[in-house]
């Protein structure tokens, strides 16, 4: 079966600076794939290239069609949910309004209602804080709201950019627990960018390690946990 997402020889640049030299990755339906690497390795740019926020050369194939030149708006309609760096919440909108924005591309009112309720089931605190501005939430709550909002879109592919950034270890675990559950129970496909290799390799099936805009190592997460170089550089033992 063809993968849900495939990047072949993708290059991206910001003006004169080349951020991605040659990135080829695949994400299969139902997989959790992690993208690891140091700061500036090109992890965030890879996600931005997929969702059309930076222009690229090479091939980006999503759900069977070439989407290299597609806009973010179009990709959202094709079921791609991207929780960007910094979470991309609307700070001056309420928690509930943020959540409703997740369903912007959907036309099935009843389905949206079910999914809003489901989001509240996953994150029960949302109920009592739904009239609060998103800016007043703690970092962990903001991250969970961003994930909840992405789920309301009922995505085919969920992309998370450093969900652990700025969060306490316990909160990070909570976020990844939800990701794991969604994958196990509903077969959600996830591509997650993470600096915290430890937790990312526990939850993912496969992983890629990026170094200066290239894929340096790839393999199953179990293999990578044992990989000499990965252990020394990213796991710290």
């Amino acid at each position, binding site marked *: 079966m063809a993968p849900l997402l495939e990047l072949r020889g993708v290059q991206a640049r910001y003006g004169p600076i080349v951020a991605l030299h040659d990135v080829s990755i695949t994400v299969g339906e139902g997989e959790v794939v992690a993208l690891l690497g140091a700061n500036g390795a090109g992890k965030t740019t890879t996600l931005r290239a997929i*969702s059309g*926020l930076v222009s690229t050369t090479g091939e980006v194939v999503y759900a069977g069609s070439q989407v290299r030149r597609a*806009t*973010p*708006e179009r990709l*959202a*309609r094709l079921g791609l*949910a*991207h929780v*960007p760096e910094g979470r*991309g*919440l*609307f*700070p*001056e*909108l309420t928690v509930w*309004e943020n959540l*409703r*924005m*997740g369903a*912007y*591309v959907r036309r099935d009112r009843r389905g949206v209602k079910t999914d809003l309720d489901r989001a509240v089931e996953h994150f029960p605190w949302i109920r009592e804080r739904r009239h*609060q*501005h998103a*800016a*007043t*939430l*703690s970092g962990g709550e903001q991250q969970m709201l961003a994930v909840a909002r992405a789920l309301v*879109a009922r995505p085919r592919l969920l992309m998370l950019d450093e969900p652990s950034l700025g969060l306490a270890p316990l909160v990070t675990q909570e976020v990844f627990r939800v990701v794991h559950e969604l994958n196990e129970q509903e077969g959600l496909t996830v591509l997650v960018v993470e600096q915290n290799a430890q937790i990312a390799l526990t939850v993912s099936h496969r992983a890629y390690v990026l170094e200066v805009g290239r894929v340096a190592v790839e393999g199953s997460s179990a293999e990578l946990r044992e990989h000499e170089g990965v252990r020394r550089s990213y796991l710290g033992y």
Partner: protein
Amino acid sequence: MLPLAFTWSDFFQQVVFGLAIGAVYASLALAIVLIYRTTHVVNFAQGEMATFTTYIAWTLTANHGWSFWPAFFATIVIAFGLGAATERVIIRPFERGDPLTLILVTIALFVIFNGLIQWIWGPEQKVFLGAFTPKPFDIGGVAISRQDVGVIVVTLITVTVLWLFFRFTKLGLAMRAAAIAPVASRLMGVRVGWMYAAGWGFAASLGAVSGMMVAPVVSLSPSMLQSVLVYAFAAAVLGGIESPVGAVVGGLLLGLATTLLGAYVSFIGVDLELPVAFSVLILVLLFRPAGLLGRQVLRRV
């Protein structure tokens, strides 16, 4: 000008008159705030665009025999199209440019719309018949102008409808989201460019309402809204340039204050209304730089 002897009936008339003027300032101020919030452009052409659309309403009523209300609603729709098209065609190429360039562009728009008005309809004043007869209501011995009450009611309805739209509809929510975080909105599937265009459209419609409300009072001329625009800017800044509620409150306060000052403070009179109003504005801004209802800094709780 001789100071009038104070009577309550006269006072109420002045209050209603002040609120009516204020309502016109308020809707134009709200239009300015809408455009500022959605595209961060200070639109100096807001008044001229409104005057232009009021001339369209005049053409519909005077030349094509439409009655006022059908012409009123048709003009609102036409104004929306005009505002949206202006954003798409003229503002969009400068969207990411220098703010100063954008100011120059809207000043150019001011000149263009004013020129178009004179070219199409001529410079002379025209009689614009409104929906409200000048015959006053008689409430407990106080004669209240129907015209003034009509302006206040129409403005309040317009503002309420707009508020409901932004608060409760999906498109209204998306427009707010696009104004706050355009990139995040794109990732949600929002076509941000069209939200900006819609913002300009709604602003132009609001301007059209204020133009059609003021034209029966001052009669229609190419420069009809130029001094009103100055008050509208003052109202927008007074309320807090990013606050829609502030714009409405600011407009009503300014209308009320200038009218009452002009009527009751003998040395002010009509000539000094504007300077006094602006002195008050500067005083307010000294103590509340973000305006009366300017954006408060959100804090975590």
